[in-house]
């Protein structure tokens, strides 16, 4: 078995459809500019359409065009939102595939670094079991909210960004970047479960969040250990984590901004061992990107153009 695999080699059964990762990368770099957002999403329209075909996102694409993904990711989860059920299913599915990739990332850390200290292997082995349980938990929670695995396209962006060939960067990316994002998302999901009196969801995700804190701590310890006595290596690992954090902010959707869909879980992150300095950095680097007003304006234009194109294709007046 070879060391290091590409994200495209992640194995899935026939229920799953993959989504190109380029869009996720581009989203993390989008400016707060309606025209630019429209331009980028129009460029990616064929790719987005292709990934939705045969999934439950197909109807959303047909109705909203390429901007459906933009709105789905960037809007906060509110019980009063008329589209909350769809939004909840999409977010839950995103978490589910995120857990799958976290499981695969932890597993590959066991295989890719055979000479790593035994204690590192023990931590990664424990993480494999935890992430496997998380996949099982979120498969049940998908069912709980009326969704199922493979219902929406899967981006392997998380695995691609986080799985470096360098062990210090791998743990910085997977255990601090990806698991840190999980802390933010799960804190927000617990907030949603509290607002909807969903005790089952709240309790399950609270347990998962507790595991994630442990995984972040593993990351903090092993970044230090793998870069011990090599400040330049430590700084490169930190730079890598910053880059991953920037990518995982999805153009400000996960940030400290007032209009963020997923707020940074500052208290939870402190408990997990993130320093004040790291949290301040995260707040700054995730704050860029289009505001919700920009996104809504761009989404409106994209939807109108999409409808016009469909009408033109069908030969009817736009």
């Amino acid at each position, binding site marked *: *078995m*070879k060391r290091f*695999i590409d994200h495209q*080699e*992640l*194995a*899935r*059964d026939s229920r799953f459809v993959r989504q190109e990762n380029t869009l996720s990368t581009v989203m993390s770099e989008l400016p707060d500019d309606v025209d630019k957002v429209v331009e980028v999403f129009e460029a990616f329209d064929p790719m987005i359409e292709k990934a939705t075909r045969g999934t439950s996102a197909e109807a959303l694409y047909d109705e909203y065009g390429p901007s459906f993904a933009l709105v789905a990711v960037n809007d906060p989860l509110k019980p009063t939102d008329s589209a909350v059920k769809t939004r909840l299913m999409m977010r839950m599915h995103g978490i589910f595939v995120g857990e*799958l990739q976290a*499981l*695969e990332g*932890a*597993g*590959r*850390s*066991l*295989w*890719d670094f*055979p000479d790593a*200290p*035994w204690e590192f*292997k*023990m931590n*990664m*082995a*424990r993480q*494999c*079991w*935890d*992430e*496997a*349980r998380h*996949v*099982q938990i979120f*498969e049940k929670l998908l069912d709980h909210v009326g969704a199922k*695995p493979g219902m929406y396209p899967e981006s392997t962006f998380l695995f691609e960004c986080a799985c470096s060939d360098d062990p210090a960067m791998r743990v910085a990316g997977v255990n601090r970047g990806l698991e840190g994002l999980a802390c933010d998302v799960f804190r927000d999901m617990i907030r949603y479960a509290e607002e909807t009196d969903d005790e089952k969801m709240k309790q399950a995700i609270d347990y998962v969040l507790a595991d994630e804190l442990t995984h972040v701590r593993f990351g903090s310890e092993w970044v230090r250990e793998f870069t011990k006595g090599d400040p330049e290596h430590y700084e490169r690992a930190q730079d890598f984590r910053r880059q991953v954090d920037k990518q995982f902010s999805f153009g400000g959707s996960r940030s400290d901004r007032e209009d963020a869909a997923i707020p940074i879980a500052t208290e939870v992150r402190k408990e997990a061992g993130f320093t004040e300095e790291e949290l301040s950095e995260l707040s700054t680097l995730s704050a860029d990107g289009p505001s919700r007003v920009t996104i809504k304006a761009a989404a409106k234009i994209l939807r109108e153009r999409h409808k016009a194109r469909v009408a033109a294709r069908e030969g009817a007046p736009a």
Partner: protein
Amino acid sequence: MSEEQRMYPGIGRDERTTFAPYSAFDIPEDLRELHGQYDVAATAKRVRNFRYTHEWMTMMMGGWLATIPELPVKTGLGKLIWESAQAADELGKRLPELRAGRNPATASQASNQGYADLIQNIAGPESPDRTIEKLTGLCDVLMPHLIEVYEVTMRETDQICDAPTIELLDDATRKLRRHVAWGKDVLDRLCDTDGRRDRRVARTRDVTAALRACGGVTGDLPADAG
């Protein structure tokens, strides 16, 4: 009380306690005999061999997770990985107790190059269409072999002197039995056509032959065994 009870012995011959004498053979009756098949050094070597296997099983299952498309197999392996790592960890902790050093780098040792090659052979199937080959090598051949050798070791080692090794092998064996049963369930489901059943049979035959050729986990398995 007619006679004064003496709680502690004194220095005179009439100053013994009044407690009745029992030997180690009396209550409860201990029929275990001293002396096993392995001295301290031989047990330490076996423990290093066992640990090598659990360490590599942990690593190979971790590597496989990404290339297995069946979700219940991916998630099921998660627990096997953790339990295999725990077994390796416990075996590693036993080594300093056997005067075999505290360096984790030397805590694992393949019995011979043939066995090291066998482990890489079992880890080898990589592409997503090879779950049957992955699990057959591990759950149908290697794990049952470990159970068999652990049972022999537990039976043949000194039952009193080496009881800590027996304890940890007993725990590892119990978990391995569960892993083998899980693997059998999964493989029975996956092998639902003659072609797939043939693949399982062929893989079992190949890995078993390689296992016999190298003498197994301890390197001393007779070529015509099991």
